[in-house]
């Protein structure tokens, strides 16, 4: 750079950035490294005075922990189902917004409400909707002489209750991302195709869909990872229950650490989870055609 570094020396700039960097190192990176370190120790907050070095013992234990594998399976199922539905709803909504309905900006803003609400509030809303005493869902079912289902107290319905809440909350995010991708498609393509006599459905299937494939993959990946780690709504709606029916990976970790006080073991589980996510993230970034940058 020819000009004198904007009136300050190189050191000045480094000093400017230093506080933020040190802060992040101290409060984000440092603790994460500590978790990795702790995973190699046995540390029960109640029974152990301090962490004891046990190398990989926690890891051997965790491979045999059926509870953990069940939790992982539930998380994966939840992530896949929720993301799948959200993609469909999001795609439909995005197509709607792309078609320039009147009041679009207002509608789009409104549609984003579920996603900006606190997840605990979303959990509260859906707990209310499904509740036996105050919820409209059981009430409507009753009016229609449907079966009496204890929604959040029966394993399968509790699981799908969580899926419903997640779909309500996050479809708007996918809609927003897919809408952004659709907006990037030049309008001339549609006009030309229409002149050739294409129907709306053909336009969507042959023109829109292929061109938003990149963003679809990005959005799906984001959402899959976040849904896998879902915690807040589980806390509020089911507490992991009934039994362990909705105990997803994060909740399992929470129980190990803050109800079982097994900090070392919990840290090992977290480390494995991090490794899994790193692998997934790596595969996700290596997608062909640079379509990730979307």
């Amino acid at each position, binding site marked *: 750079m020819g000009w004198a570094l904007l009136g300050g020396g190189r050191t000045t700039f480094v000093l400017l950035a230093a506080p933020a960097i040190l802060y992040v190192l101290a409060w984000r990176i440092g603790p994460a490294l500590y978790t990795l370190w702790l995973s190699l120790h046995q540390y029960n907050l109640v029974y152990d005075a301090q962490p004891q070095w046990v190398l990989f013992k926690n890891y051997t234990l965790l491979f045999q922990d059926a509870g953990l594998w069940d939790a992982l399976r539930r998380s994966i199922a939840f992530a896949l189902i929720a993301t799948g539905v959200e993609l469909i709803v999001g795609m439909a909504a995005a197509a709607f917004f792309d078609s320039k309905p009147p009041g679009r900006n207002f509608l789009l803003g409104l549609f984003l409400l579920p996603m900006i*609400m606190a997840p605990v509030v979303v959990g509260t809303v859906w707990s209310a909707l499904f509740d036996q005493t105050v919820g409209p869902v059981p009430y409507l079912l009753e009016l229609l002489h449907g079966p009496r289902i204890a929604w959040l107290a029966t394993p399968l319905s509790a699981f799908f209750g969580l899926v419903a809440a997640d779909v309500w909350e996050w479809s708007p995010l996918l809609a927003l991302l897919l809408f952004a991708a659709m907006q990037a498609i030049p309008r001339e393509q549609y006009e030309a195709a229409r002149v050739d006599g294409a129907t709306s459905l053909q336009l969507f299937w042959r023109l829109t869909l292929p061109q938003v494939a990149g963003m679809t993959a990005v959005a799906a990946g984001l959402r899959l990872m976040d849904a896998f780690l879902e915690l807040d709504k589980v806390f509020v709606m089911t507490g992991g229950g009934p039994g362990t029916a909705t105990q997803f990976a994060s909740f399992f970790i929470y129980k190990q650490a803050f109800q079982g006080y097994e900090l070392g073991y919990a840290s090992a589980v977290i480390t494995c989870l991090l490794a899994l996510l790193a692998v997934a993230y790596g595969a996700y970034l290596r997608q062909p055609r640079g379509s990730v940058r979307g």
Partner: protein
Amino acid sequence: MPRNVRRRHWGHTVGTVLVLLWTLPPFLYLVLLSVKPERLMVERSVLLFWPTFERYRDIVVTDLGLPIWNSLITSGVGAVGALLLAGLAAVTFSFLDFRWKAALFLVILLPRMFPPVTTLIPIQLMLKDLDLIDTRTGLIVLFIGFQIPLAIWVLRTFFDEIPRELAESAAIDGASLWSIVRHIILPLSRTGLLAAFILAFIFNWNEFLFPLIVTSFNAKTGAVAIMSFAGGYKKLQWGSLAVLGVVMTMPVIIFVVAFRATLIRGFTAGALKG
């Protein structure tokens, strides 16, 4: 009217109705519950009634409002703190070109890729050692750390749009870095600063897991207070729960409605992890 256009109008109407039906009823039901008199609470067919606002009054008058107040302070101060630190760093990341920038940037982006549970245990231990458990200060310290990465990302995007020549010519004329920041960078990035503040505030406001672990009586936030009414299927005080839910959503709605355009710019620039 040509059939094509009529079909499109029909499609728009259906779509609009669907969007409204998707978004509003669940939330409005919560609002309904929050003003429903206690004796009518389980009468689900009763939709028309004289609303009671005494629960909202209770929030303001009694201890029930403390968690909300805690949320307000910690979210606000946390956001401001994050902006200060992030703003300075973003100046460096935007205007300076140095070899290590890629590596350092990774340090800023990396934390956002960890699942939230990763640092839960160490953070609790750290705050315990610093005697900051169950204090607003402790939460603020945490919140600043949470939002710095996002704030740097958003602010850098906005700083990048400031024409380099403006800053360069000021420097050539002998202006100090500080005055360049004050007179060129800050005024031109007002939108970015606002967007970053709102995003940071909202994310702090919605934070649940860490406040749950790190506070108990004094510094409990609104999100944690909701949890103490809820949790599993032991919910009985629907009225209070509903009020908390509505109050916890109000600031978010207000911010987003008032600053829609600003936010969409900031959100699409910053919040996409990829």
